[in-house]
């Protein structure tokens, strides 16, 4: 009887397309908005996940997220290095500094100062130049998006020219020479990222008593990270997080303290409700129109269970097609916006969640129809 169910469904083109479109719309809206949300939230911790080498981040206990810098005294670095189980510990500067562009305008940059000796904490991918070039005088490495966008040089043609190695910047009244272009994860604030050495970064930065933002720690082989983390905290009085722990802390800060989740949740909920309404209404009207046929099938000996399976099969089919189209369109929109500021990340977990949402929509949509068919009196077929 599956064949009969499918032919009943696809035979009524208008209704069939109506239901599929409703579910496609819901799937698209749910998936796309959720993917943008995931992408946007991912940007909040891009600066952390870009640093793959350190196991533990040490910081002031009052720090709430990656951009909430509460500087430490330089001596804290030595205290951390002295903790048992620490293989090495290096300083990291992170701060917002103003860059003066050639046309006289200013642009705030996210400046990251790496340990002078090891350059640990550098960008994950170099596009032009080498990380070691940071050892040259006044050198900086700029991320490709910033170099081609907010930090680009004005040109005579009017179209800004991307920064290339050899160009210079003025960072907080200090000359800085671009020696490389790198690729980094986009940050939440979308400011250009500028890498330099720790010492040079502290020179670029306004004079303050404390300038050390974080201490990056590598544990000795075999060292339990949780134990080491607690040991660092107990010894120094600072906070220590594993990389994932710091990512979670940052993620939850933005989740709890910004309007991002509620705004996206409204969009996702809207997609869910509108999708359910369109699909449900059309599906119910489809069942109503076929009620006489269902009655005839019931009279001819089709068990109610088979009729319910037929309805569920119809719902599963339109659900699968609508889901596929919706996710496909969402992916297409993400791909089309891949070189823009739009954040779009679609992990498999999100696709699964979206599929579950569509399953719920299909169940809700078919419930009314199922109820109607269960209570359908087959004697209806003898009425005119």
């Amino acid at each position, binding site marked *: 009887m599956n*064949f*009969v169910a499918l032919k009943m469904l696809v035979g009524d083109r208008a209704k069939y397309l109506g239901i599929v479109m409703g579910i496609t719309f819901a799937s698209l809206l749910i998936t796309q908005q959720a993917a943008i949300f995931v992408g946007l939230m991912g940007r909040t911790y891009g600066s952390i996940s870009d640093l793959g080498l350190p196991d533990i981040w040490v910081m002031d206990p009052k720090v709430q997220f990656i951009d909430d810098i509460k500087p430490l005294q330089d001596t804290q670095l030595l205290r951390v290095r002295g903790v048992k189980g620490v293989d090495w510990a290096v300083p990291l500067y992170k701060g917002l500094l103003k860059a003066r562009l050639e046309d006289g305008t200013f642009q705030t940059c996210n400046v990251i100062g790496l340990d002078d000796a090891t350059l640990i904490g550098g960008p994950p991918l170099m596009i032009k130049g080498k990380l070691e070039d940071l050892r040259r005088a006044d050198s900086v490495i700029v991320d490709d998006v910033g170099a081609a966008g907010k930090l680009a040089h004005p040109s005579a043609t009017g179209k800004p020219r991307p920064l290339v190695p050899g160009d210079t910047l003025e960072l907080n009244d200090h000359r800085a020479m671009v020696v490389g272009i790198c690729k980094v994860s986009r940050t939440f604030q979308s400011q250009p990222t500028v890498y330099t050495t720790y010492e040079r970064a502290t020179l670029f930065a306004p004079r303050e008593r404390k300038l050390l933002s974080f201490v990056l720690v590598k544990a000795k082989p075999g060292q339990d990270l949780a134990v080491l983390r607690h040991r660092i905290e107990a010894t120094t009085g600072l906070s220590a997080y594993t990389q994932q722990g710091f990512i979670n802390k940052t993620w939850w800060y933005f989740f709890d303290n910004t309007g991002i989740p509620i705004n996206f949740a409204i969009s996702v909920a809207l997609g869910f409700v509108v999708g359910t309404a369109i699909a449900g209404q059309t599906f119910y009207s489809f069942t109503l129109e076929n009620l006489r*046929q269902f009655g*005839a099938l*019931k009279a*001819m*000996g089709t*068990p109610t269970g088979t009729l319910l399976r037929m309805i569920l099969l119809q719902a599963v089919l339109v659900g699968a097609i609508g889901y596929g189209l919706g996710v496909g369109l969402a992916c297409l929109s993400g791909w089309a916006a891949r070189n823009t500021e739009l954040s779009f990340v679609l992990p498999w977990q999100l696709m699964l969640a979206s599929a579950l949402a569509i399953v719920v929509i299909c169940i809700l949509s078919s419930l009314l129809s199922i109820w109607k068919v269960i209570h359908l009196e087959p004697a209806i077929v003898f009425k005119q």
Partner: protein
Amino acid sequence: MTLETAHLPADQIAVRCRGVTKSYGQGSSQVTALRGIDLDVRRGELLMLVGPSGCGKTTLISVIAGILDQNRGECTVFGHDFKAMRQNDRTKYRGQMIGFVFQSFNLLPTLTAAENVSVPLLINGMPRRQALAKAKKELAGVGLGERANSLPAELSGGQQQRVAIARALVHDPKLIVCDEPTSALDHATGQKIMEILRGVGVASDRALVIVTHDNRIFQFADRIVKMDDGQVVGTLDSPDELRAQADAVRTGAAERTTEESVS
């Protein structure tokens, strides 16, 4: 009333109803559709149920076909009492033993003629390919072998009813229940449909029960049962007798109408 078939052994009886009563609604709004119906349908018989609108014909075939429960009395089909069966058994029995022909055909509009005819076979678990092949043979039997792949909308009313007849017969049911099978058709097509029903539907181990208003098809009946006000009011073995009665009533009504208009 004593039934002339009461003496027949059970193995010659297809349908046996005794004291069947059916009411709709409750309290002051209760309507009694059947008032103690006693009726036998023999195997190999084409029986017509006739009577005015609202006399309970459709309710009676609904009870006989097991899609409606009577309030009182007993109704057995080939010895099986639907009311005593569990719902699943009843549905299965109905699917195997009963074929339906409806007034408005009730064909699935998105299925071809052959697919429509194959539905009872699919319900009974036959594989689709096999069911389609058998359905096409059955369609050929009602003269529609060439239209097996046509959708119902592409067929005339008479052709659609022939498809419905093929659907009612394809799984070789023992009882065929027809509700006004010719009322939506013109006279010639109605005659053709009845010839087909009579030709391919009647068999020694099968019974046909046809509800109709159409006195032009009475000659196809083996026996005609008259109903009125939820009761069996007469049984006629001669269709001519019933047609004569119907004509007399119609003529009388016409004369009364003429007299009233003259006065």
